[in-house]
């Protein structure tokens, strides 16, 4: 529907186009191209620099394309101890964690979307309050300690079960499905469980996809709480390892390493290779996710 409207808009403006408007349109297109180039260039630079020899990178000859192709930076990056463990952990936290998120979020959102539920207002307020106010670092940390969850996978999986924002998107979507469907199902003798699983969930695929994606991006990219709550290397997700390699080491690096024409990799090109390795999984799913985010933003704007 939105695209249709946009089309009409464009036809409307195409009918009478003065010279000034043609210039204006050209400038707009040009601005779009410039914004795109500026945004994509840092990523493109990382990609070409990671595949070039370090001397060319340092000389500044790597600008638009790979110079002196070499994949040694990747070979070195993939040899970093714990990289594969961290990668595996991230997949584990992402898959199991998002499944947990969706379980907590959809069940609660469905109950709260039923207007007849006694206490609905209070429970909804309890959710909304968590968007406005949280206990802060130390109380949260001490809570994990009291629950004996420090340094466990369970802390990451269960401890971050619900995001209030996502729950409200889900609740609003559930509310937008006509109640008559529920009444009809009740008349046919269906239980609330059955109505939730067999009617509401299958009808909410766009919203389910949106909220899944929100959770997935957060799970994949989050580093702070895993870093704070976990101690053992074998439990660490990729982003915590990345922080050690990209942030802590870059900050401390004296960069005394001598780079010659024969060098096929340097700590710097290895860092670029690592970034590419860390980004790729999200970029591969990105094209499939993009359209759902838009529906999500619109669904979230629907009033509760």
């Amino acid at each position, binding site marked *: 529907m939105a695209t249709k409207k946009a089309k009409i808009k464009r036809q409307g403006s195409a009918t009478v186009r003065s010279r000034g408007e043609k210039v204006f349109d050209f400038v707009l297109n040009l601005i779009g191209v410039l914004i795109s180039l500026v945004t994509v260039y840092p990523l493109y630079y990382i990609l070409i620099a990671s595949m070039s020899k370090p001397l060319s990178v340092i000389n500044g000859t790597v600008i638009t394309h790979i110079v002196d192709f070499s994949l040694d930076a990747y070979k070195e990056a993939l040899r970093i101890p714990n990289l594969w463990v961290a990668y595996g952990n991230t997949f584990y936290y992402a898959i199991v964690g998002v499944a947990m998120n969706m379980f907590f979020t959809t069940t609660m959102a469905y109950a709260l979307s039923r207007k007849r539920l006694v206490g609905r207002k209070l429970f909804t307020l309890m959710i909304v309050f968590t968007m*406005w106010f949280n206990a802060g670092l130390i109380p949260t940390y001490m809570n994990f300690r009291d629950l004996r969850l420090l340094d466990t996978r369970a802390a990451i999986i269960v401890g971050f079960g619900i995001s209030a924002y996502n729950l409200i998107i889900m609740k609003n979507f559930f509310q937008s499905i006509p109640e008559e469907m529920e009444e009809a199902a009740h008349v046919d003798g269906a239980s609330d469980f059955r109505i939730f699983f067999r009617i509401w969930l299958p009808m909410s695929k766009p919203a389910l996809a949106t909220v899944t994606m929100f959770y997935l991006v957060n799970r994949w990219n989050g580093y702070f709480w895993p870093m704070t709550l976990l101690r053992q290397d074998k439990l660490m997700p990729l982003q915590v390892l990345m922080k050690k390699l990209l942030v802590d080491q870059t900050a401390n690096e004296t960069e005394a390493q001598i780079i010659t024409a024969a060098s096929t990799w340097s700590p710097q090109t290895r860092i670029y290779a690592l970034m590419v390795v860390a980004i790729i999984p999200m970029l591969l799913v990105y094209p499939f996710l993009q359209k759902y985010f838009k529906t999500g933003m619109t669904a979230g704007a629907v009033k509760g």
Partner: protein
Amino acid sequence: MNAAKVQKKPKTTSKLKQMRSDWQLYVLLSFGLIWLILFAYKPLMGLRIAFYDFNPFGGLAKSRYVGFENFQRYFSSPDFARTVKNTVMLALWQLGLIFPASIILALVVTQMTSRGISKATQTITFLPYFISAVVVAGMVLSFTSPNNGWINIIRRSFGLEPIYFMVQAKYFRPIYTLMLLWMQAGYNSLVYIAAIMGIDTSLYEAATVDGANKLQRIIHVTLPGILPTIMTMLLLNIGKMIRSGYETIILLYHPSTYEAADTIATYAYRLAFDNPGRADYGLSTAVGLVEAVVAFIMVALANYMSRRVTESSLW
């Protein structure tokens, strides 16, 4: 009084009856509710730490109650003015740069004539949302590195001296804000794009008939059309920005840039987790509580004003 009792009784019984017939809904509700109590409400009890000289090994039982001493220590320390100023300044930088840029980006991609470029621009500007703060911060640190960072390579090729950007306080706010701009502009623009798409097209046609050119149509039709959205986002963002970003800031700041980068939240973080041998849980919790209360008031106020001004609120 008697009449009220008579009236009240059937109401409560019907409520109980309703609850009993809805027991399955309560089962569905219970998982999330138990989670909320354990992980969102139980930690609130830990805020009591702010009023103790807290001993992390003995817990509250073995800690000394000090009343408001932790708060007084924070308010009277030189860190107070600095952290409040930095929190406000970073919020203002974001408000001044990222907020309008997101609106302009939405206008550009919806008003341009080339469908292909519009789609490509949206896809590309949204892409950084999928990249973690750690990797983006790593990119910033690497690009600004004095020896072999991309920016200094360019400076050197122009015969300029390399600059060690990340240890100079004056560069922190612009660099941090530009980084957030790169990360968030595309994502933030989505809500405005949706609002622009929702504007009644007959308004544009009427304006065209009246002889308005494209720029005039943008100023007189598009902008007023998305004004409620802009107001809502503006008011809500003010509150959000206050408590934004300590996870991102701690990746980028450096003792020599604290004067510009250290916010209330990063200060609370450092007191507890980055203060070897001298971790001060009581003070950290107090500082965190101050921040949470200020952010809460800002968000509540913003939501209230948004409801009054635009007759809509996000919740």
